[in-house]
């Protein structure tokens, strides 16, 4: 039994139970993560007066227009995303970690992909599936995972054709430089069925 409200009112991040991390396939982040500003005081705190602004600021919170300061702010902000990237582990996989085809999905297509892979395996097709729960940032080991498959394809409910690459496919290609293709990329708004995925995989391997 999961007591949902309790999770929402946690004061200490160390109190978050391990299964929450396992569900999102992420490790705990380091204790100290640098922020652009040192002070994060709230109104009413004596001596902590600060301005929250969209302009670039230095560590003290004062607006700063110098080139070095702007570069530092970008480095610090991106490092926060990099911490998450390093903490991400291998996403949920259906089937073995090597074979002929790896089909990648995200979001609502998870169930259809899982069923399609089970059915493919029953017929002896060496297909595996991978479902992304977090699309950005992506974990760092995708290239190694993709290398164990002959073909890598995406299953997504988004438009793509020969001249307009589908979004997830484009993202994976740019991250890994692997020749990822779209298996299904349509914008009909209707759910993708396991049968269609299986047929497309069979067609791909023919």
């Amino acid at each position: 039994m999961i007591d949902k409200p309790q999770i929402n009112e946690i004061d200490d991040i160390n109190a978050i139970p391990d299964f929450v991390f396992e569900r999102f396939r992420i490790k705990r982040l380091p204790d100290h993560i640098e922020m652009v500003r040192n002070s994060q005081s709230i109104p009413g705190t004596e001596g902590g007066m600060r301005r929250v602004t969209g302009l670039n600021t230095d560590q003290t919170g004062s607006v700063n227009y110098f080139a070095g300061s702007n570069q530092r702010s970008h480095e610090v902000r991106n490092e926060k995303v990099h911490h998450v990237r390093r903490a991400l582990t291998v996403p949920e996989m259906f089937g073995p970690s090597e074979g002929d085809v790896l089909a990648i999905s995200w979001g609502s297509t998870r169930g259809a992909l899982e069923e399609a892979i089970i059915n493919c395996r029953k017929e002896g097709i060496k297909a595996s599936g991978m479902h992304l729960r977090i699309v950005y940032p992506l974990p760092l080991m995708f290239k190694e995972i993709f290398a164990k498959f002959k073909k890598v394809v995406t299953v997504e409910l988004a438009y793509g054709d020969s001249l307009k690459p589908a979004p997830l496919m484009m993202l994976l290609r740019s991250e890994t430089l692997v020749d990822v293709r779209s298996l299904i990329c349509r914008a009909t708004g209707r759910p993708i069925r396991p049968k269609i995925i299986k047929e497309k995989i069979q067609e791909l391997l023919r």
Partner: protein
Amino acid sequence: MNVQTVNPEQKLTIKDLHTENPRWCIGCGDFGIVMALKRFMIDDTLNPKDTVNVSGIGCSGRAPNYVNTYGLHGIHGRPIPISLGLALVRPDLNVFVHSGDGDALSIGGNHLIHGINKNFNCVFLLYDNELYALTKSQTSPTTRKGHATNTQPSGSYLDPLNAVRLVLGIGASFVASSADWMPDHLGQVLDAAFKHKGFSFVHISQRCPHFDPNNFDHKSTSWFSFLTHEKGIPVDKRLADKVEVVQHDPSNAEAAFKIANSSRVHFGLYYHDPKKPCYDQILRDLITKTEQKSRKDMFAKFRI
């Protein structure tokens, strides 16, 4: 630049409220407005740690960065929803909202309507320089007809929006008007606005020498009048004997509309209704009246 701390034992000074040198054009009216705000904070002994300046985008949006209090340089046209949230959660804070004529009347026009209607406790400063100046001179809702800007180079096509008449029409509980070059009068207006519990709308005529040097003629006094009354705001000391003074009772809404409708400019308190209910107060009263339940009891039904 280090943020200075204020010693509570000592009297607050202008230096304590200084953060950095503003990035406004030479002669900009915003300098006068921020200085008047600082002087008002010293005169009324406002504690900087309990003061929050919220702004939108524009030349006016930079104001919170130049006052050493808590500040939020928000998003375009949306300082009102941000400050409503602040007013609801933290009634102990003094909230000042800084918004320009484009920010408040064009991009954030819809929020201005509901901010005034909800009548939450804040002081709203409308910096009216009659054009968009941060983006280098475009026509704004208050640009006067015939004035050439980058977007309407042959002269603005429409009559300007009358901000004071607009907010009177929506039902603002406090409507006053002043100008950046009258620090004494502006200070008095801020003082009255701060003491009013509710949404205090303060229209400030702001000079813009770089993009529209002729928007307000601060050297002559023939084009405007002061509104005064025993319940209103005293006339600017420096200009008292040079300007026409009109007696106006701020509780008279009909007379306020007549003055706002006239082609002549009037500085002073147009309208003041201290009895209009405040949305933030209503919500807080509702919370205190509601029966207290522990979180555990509340969520017991939703357990899965």
